[in-house]
């Protein structure tokens, strides 16, 4: 197969929030769950800007508790440094929509699993150059050139959720989002 140069990273799909300037304050309890989830769906995963935190399945619930909007978040890995950053981004995103008081509550059970990543997000990962998780325990093709001639370099990679693989056809290394 013709060797291809890896594509430059595409722009983040959901895009950055238009502005962090707060909209008019909203009355606590007045916004439906679906709307809140939609807003959270515009917060991207820090290290993987093409998927949102709702696509990854780490936002488990969002509910009004009196005046406070409580967001339950399940960390991907217990030591993932992105967890704290994502908490801050959640608070910022909701405050920008006029929610005055936000509480992010970690929820570790049930433990996060790659099964919760949406099909759309898996496709977005592949397009971005990260092979999506597969139950078989490894990628079936190179996200750059599509060749099935791939091999694992290391089960640990640039972030806790990824493994390092390489393609024997186009010779490019690539990340694989490992199953847990």
């Amino acid at each position: 197969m013709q060797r291809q140069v890896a594509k430059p990273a595409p722009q983040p799909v959901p895009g950055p929030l238009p502005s962090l300037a707060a909209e008019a304050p909203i009355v606590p309890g007045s916004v439906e769950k679906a709307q809140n989830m939609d807003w959270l769906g515009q917060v991207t995963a820090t290290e993987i800007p093409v998927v949102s935190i709702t696509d990854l399945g780490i936002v488990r619930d969002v509910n009004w508790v009196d005046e406070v909007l409580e967001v339950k978040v399940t960390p991907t890995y217990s030591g993932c440094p992105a967890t704290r950053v994502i908490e801050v981004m959640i608070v910022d995103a909701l405050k920008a929509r006029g929610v005055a008081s936000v509480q992010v509550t970690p929820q570790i059970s049930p433990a996060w699993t790659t099964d919760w990543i949406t099909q759309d997000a898996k496709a977005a990962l592949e397009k971005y150059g990260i092979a999506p998780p597969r139950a078989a325990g490894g990628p079936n093709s190179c996200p750059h050139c599509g060749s099935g001639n791939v091999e694992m370099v290391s089960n640990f990679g640039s972030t806790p959720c990824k493994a390092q693989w390489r393609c024997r056809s186009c010779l490019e290394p690539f990340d694989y989002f490992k199953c847990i």
Partner: protein
Amino acid sequence: MADQTDLFEALCRLGDTTLVLGHRVGEWCGHGPALEEDIALANVSLDLIGQTQLWLSYAAEVEGKGRTADDLAMLRDAWDFRNLLLVERPNEDFGHTMMRQFLFDHFYKLQLAQLQDSSDHKIAAISAKALKEVSYHADRSASVVVSLGDGTEESHHRMQSALDALWPYVGEMFSVDDLDERMVAQGIIPNVADLRAAYDRDISAILSRATLSIPESSFAHTGGKIGFRHSEHLGHLLAQMQWLQRAYPGAQW
């Protein structure tokens, strides 16, 4: 409901072990023998420190004295630590570090598999989470032990020396004291002594593939998890880990 002092102690045994090993493995960051190994070691360290956050946060909550996980990690001295002696052993060379990891991973994996059915829901939740991470650690340490054990004459010799040196620290992982028995009776933790047969079966199969021989002596150093006697290495480790909080109390990022 468990006695809170007992529960605090049991959680420190879990959290101190992951903390000390996490720090030890983290000492490799930037010094690994190959980029992939460096990254893997740092990732394993990160997982262990993350699990420590969960274990010690829960310990602090159970204690109810207003301390945090950071307080427990950074402001206790060696005599208050309850980690296994194995994990405070120095890194030595890469093979030695990986042998220590291998001996621990396969124990911890069995322990977590039982702990995820704990009658304490928080312990069960933390364990189910940690088990997913530790399964990857165990796979990796096993494959490195096989590669180096069944590698060159030099690597084989070093791995056998590491196994000989670390073997006397294996027995403590399966030791059971009165506190353990009280916790076992309430279904909070498994009886670790019962895990020994499965452990021996697991590691023997791998060590045999690695062409390494398990020492015959069953002598075991003890005293780490009960806090009776740590080795001199723990104090040095804590001095490095805690110096910033000691020198600049309350410093934050």
